[in-house]
Structures are given as structure tokens and as C-alpha cells.
């Protein structure tokens, strides 16, 4: 709720800072060279026949402006569930195949409090990432991926066009920087992950295009758009700390999603910021990669 109203979290400043910092990582590591080591020893990434999975719940805020439904901004609490897993790519050394599944839901209200909107988004983000930097306490992976978002936004007060289907499928780039921090002999893995969809498809009805025309007369051409960074920008980032507590590793973190597009005379932006808590598990892969 607090995040939903905070200007910093709901402007482009945060994603810009994020991209700038992530892009600067190679510069920093180039400036401070260190000897290479094996990831298995570090233990931040999965070794062969092993995968690292994390399940987490999140709570925070969402901020949405969808001009197809309303010219006003809606804000509210956001709840999410996410599942993330990563394992080594068997066919190629130095490659990893993480994927991320996330569901976020938010009941929102207009600033004046008398309009309601509900949002539900499902994301699936598999990627294939190469290990680019490998140091004793630091790793950086990055590579191509797929971004799939399916969801909807429902405005309670609208009569003939009450909801907006969200469908975004795109080729993306993903990356993760991980650093092992040791506090009183306890290894804490700090992870920073970003996903940026680049080229693909986005469903967004043009200005004025009505449900009746789309779904009854079949005029769908005005709702399908080629998405590229000139008309759609999305940045998903997760910053987390995996902390050993007893026999398990607890994940605490932050997840931010900044999604905006300007297509067919309709502008839409949905920002969500949530705090995460979850559990991380290392699982041995026994048969056929399962």
C-alpha cells in the first residue's frame, strides 16, 4: 500500500536506475579482477544433477493507469505468489536454464476512493543464461529468454467495456547477479535478477475499439500490436537475500514490475512493488531431468 503511493516506486526513476546499475556490473568486475573458481564450491548456483527452487509469497502495492478503461490512476494492495527454479543446462557447459512463474493480484481504488478496479496477472519467464562472470563470491549470468504475461484488469463501473485482457508474449533478455555475503560464518546469498522483454506481441484494443466489434464482428486487427521498446517497456526485477535459518534457507526480498505501453492511442502502465518471503530448496535431479 505504501509502495503503491510512493512516487519513487511508481515513476520511471527506479527502472532506469535498475538498468543503469545492472549494466554497470561488468565495469565494476572488470575494475576489480579476481581469480576464477568453480561455482559448485561457491554454492550459489546449482551443480550438475541439482536444481535450486524457491517459493515465495509477496505483499506490497500496485499502481495502474489503463486509458482504455479509465483516464484515472488506480492504486491498491498487491499480493503475489512466485515460483522460481534454476538448473544447469545439460547440453552446454556454463549455461543455466532458470524459469520464473508469478501470479500477482490487486484490488485497487481511484484516488478519491469511489471507483474500483481488480487486476490479475500471470507471468511465465523461462530463459537460457550463460555464465559470464565467475568469481569466488560473485557470479553473473545473462542470456535470452521468453516473456509470457496473461491477465486482465476489470473496472467495476464500466458498462460495455468493463475489462481489458492482457496478453504479452515476447523474446526477452534476463540476467542475474549473485554475491555471497558471509556474516558470522553464515553464508547469505544476495541475488539481483532482471527480465526485460524486447520484441513480441501485445494485445491492446485501439482507442475507441469496442468489445462488440472485436468479439462479435471479429474486428481483431485493431487489438494486436507488434511490441518493441519503442512502444512497450517492461522491466521485472527481484532483489533477494537467501539466509540460512536452521536447516532451511529463507528468502527475503523485493520484487518490482514496471510495465508500460503506448499503442493505438491507448496508454497503459502497471507498476507493482512487493516484499517477498519464501523458502529456497536444493533438489537432486534423479531421472530424466525430473
Amino acid at each position, binding site marked *: 500500500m505504501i509502495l503503491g503511493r510512493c512516487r519513487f516506486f511508481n515513476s520511471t526513476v527506479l527502472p532506469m536506475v535498475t538498468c543503469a546499475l545492472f549494466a*554497470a556490473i561488468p*565495469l565494476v568486475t572488470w575494475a576489480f579482477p579476481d581469480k576464477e573458481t568453480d561455482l559448485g564450491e561457491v554454492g550459489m548456483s546449482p551443480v550438475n544433477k541439482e536444481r535450486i527452487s524457491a517459493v515465495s509469497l509477496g505483499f506490497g502495492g500496485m499502481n495502474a493507469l489503463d486509458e482504455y478503461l479509465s483516464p484515472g*490512476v488506480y492504486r491498491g494492495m498487491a499480493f503475489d505468489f512466485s515460483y522460481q527454479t534454476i538448473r544447469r543446462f545439460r547440453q552446454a557447459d556454463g549455461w543455466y536454464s532458470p524459469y520464473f512463474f508469478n501470479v500477482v493480484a490487486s484490488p485497487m481504488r481511484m484516488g478519491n476512493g469511489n*471507483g474500483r478496479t481488480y487486476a490479475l496477472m500471470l507471468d511465465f519467464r523461462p530463459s537460457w543464461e550463460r555464465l559470464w562472470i565467475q568469481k569466488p563470491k560473485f557470479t553473473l549470468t545473462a542470456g535470452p529468454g521468453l516473456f509470457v504475461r496473461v491477465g486482465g484488469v476489470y473496472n467495476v463501473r464500466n*458498462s460495455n467495456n468493463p475489462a481489458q485482457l492482457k496478453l504479452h508474449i515476447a523474446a526477452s533478455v534476463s540476467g542475474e547477479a549473485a554475491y555471497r555475503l558471509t556474516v558470522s560464518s553464515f553464508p547469505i546469498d544476495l541475488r539481483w535478477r532482471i527480465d526485460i522483454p524486447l520484441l513480441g506481441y501485445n494485445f491492446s484494443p485501439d482507442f*475507441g475499439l469496442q468489445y462488440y*466489434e472485436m468479439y462479435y*464482428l471479429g474486428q481483431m486487427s485493431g487489438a494486436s500490436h507488434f511490441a518493441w521498446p519503442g512502444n512497450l517497456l517492461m522491466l521485472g526485477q527481484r532483489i533477494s537475500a537467501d539466509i540460512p535459518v536452521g536447516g532451511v534457507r529463507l528468502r527475503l526480498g523485493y520484487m518490482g514490475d514496471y510495465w508500460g505501453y503506448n499503442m493505438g492511442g491507448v496508454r497503459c502502465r502497471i507498476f507493482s512493488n512487493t516484499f517477498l518471503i519464501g523458502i529456497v530448496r536444493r533438489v537432486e535431479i534423479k531421472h530424466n531431468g525430473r
Partner: protein
Amino acid sequence: MRHHIMNIKALLLSLSVLSVTSCIRETMPDNTPAGNFEALWEMMDQRYCFFDYKASEYGLDWNEVYVRYKPRISDNMSSEGLFEVLCEMLSELRDGHVNLYSSIDVGRNWSWYEAFPPNFYEHLQSNYLGTDYRIGGGLRYQILDDNVGYIYYSDFTGSLDDSYLNRALNYFSLCNGLIIDVRSNGGGYIFNIDKIVSRFIEEPVLCGYVCHKNGPGHSDFSDYAERWIEPATDQLRWNKPVAILSNRGCYSATNTFVSDMKALPQVCVIGDRTGGGGGIPSSFELPNGWSVRYSACPMLDSDRRQIEFGVEPDIRVDISDSDFARGVDTIIESARVWINSFLSK
């Protein structure tokens, strides 16, 4: 060095592409009387679909409306006062699909039927329906004395299942003709139109056109999309004469239904001109949370004529005072006469 350049390029690219989302900011004015007035005027200016048509019909000038109403807005005016001024401004559009919803009231313009004779009285209708009429799917129906079927359909908002239509048409299978009375039906789901019309055609029929605004200018419209209705080939259909009864209370989906049926050869529209409502409505909100409904998409008849101000009947009939006094519905009687004359041709 080469690594340096690559990294700097990546950084600049990241920063430049993010400038696109920086454009996506709320453009809604402040929640003040002036802000709400500006938001309403501008949103209607960009989204309402009948400015050009109404300028030609009765000289509507939306810019002149702004100049006339703006001086009535002040910072210290009450919500009730603001609501009254905004409703008055919207009434300049003479559109029953334009409403302002607030906790104070629902702003409306119902002049499309309030200013005309009702031409429909339930106590007169009950003389024809009796008490043993059938009910199904929102239809109330009866067979009249001269073996003419009579259906009263009062509302397009309910779900009209095929089974109800089959049941009704089967009930009328031995009748000479059919009267479909949609008087004072204020509209509802547009999808119900096709369900009914499809029972009265033998081949696909081009019933009309629809387009939408594709930009903020008053003349920014998409190409017309054709509205075809397919016959309900796997359902019971009717090919005998049909009289559609209309009055000024026929609005929105009912208006379109009358327009569609009027284009069919065995159909005659009898009664008063329909009330209109030829635009598909949509909604937006003002900074203070009031909701506005407006006509977003014009629907045209099969000859590409506007139906926003109603559909003229084939036979114009009003309920006469003498018939009213005798408990006779002049419009139903005219329909019975037309069906019998159609059969005798």
C-alpha cells in the same frame, strides 16, 4: 577498452528505451470544480461519436458549449452545483446514452420519450394478453382472436435462450402472422438482436454498419464494419408476415432491432418513431470519481443512415383518444389489419 565501449553502449541503450514509459503519466486534471469541468468537456470532445452528425442536425457546437458553461464554474461551488452545471452541459448532446453518475443523482436526458405521446399503456395491452399468456426468456406471448400471434418483449437485458424462441415460435406455428411488440423497451444486450432477427431470415442479411472513433478529432473514425446476421439454420424460423410495434420508448438495442427488422421484406414497423440511441455506449471517470457514460460507436442502418434519432415506422399510428377510452390499442389493431391485408395480397 573494447569492453568499456560495449558496456557504455549497453548503459546508454537501457536509459534511452526507458524514456518511452516516462511519457505514460496521468493526464487527468486536479479534483477541483474547474478540473472536473475541463476533464468532462475534453474527454467528451475526444470520445463522443456524434458531434459531426449533431452539428448538421441541430447545430451543436461543442466549443461554443464550453464558452457558454465555463463561466458558471467557480472554485467555491458545491458538488450539487457542479453536478447541475455538468448535467446541463451534457444535455446539450440530446443523447439518452449520456449519463453522469454520482452519489447525488444520475444525470440523464430522457427527452427522447418524455416529450412525446407514450403510445403504450399496460392496461390496454392487458386486454390482448389476458391473464393466461405464456412467459419465457423475457417474452410474454398469446394468440389473439383472429389467429395472430402476439409477443411482448419488454427488455433486451435478459439472456434470451434459443429454447425460449423455439417454444414461442412453435406455439405460433398455426398462426397467420406475428406481432412483436417492443414498445417501451429501453434496450439491453445487443447480442439478443441477432438471436431474434436470425429467426426471420432465410439467408445472411446485411443489417447495418458500425465504426469507432480512432482518434480524438470529431471526424476521426475507423472504416465501417459490416453487421451481417446469419439465419438460425438449425432452429425454428418464421417466414410469415411480422408486424413490429414501436414507440418513442424503443431505445438503444431496441432501436437497432427495429432498424434491422425493418429491412426484411415480410416485416412492417407500425406505431411511432423509435426513441433512438444509435451509439454503443462506453464509460470514463472524472477526477472526483463521478462516472460518465457516452456514445462511443455509431451504428448505422443497412443504407448507412444514422439511427441516433430513431427509426421511422412504415405505418405511423398513434393511440387515439377514442380507442383509449374504449380500451382498444390502436397500434395493435393496426398491426392485425396489416397482417390480414398482407395475407390477402
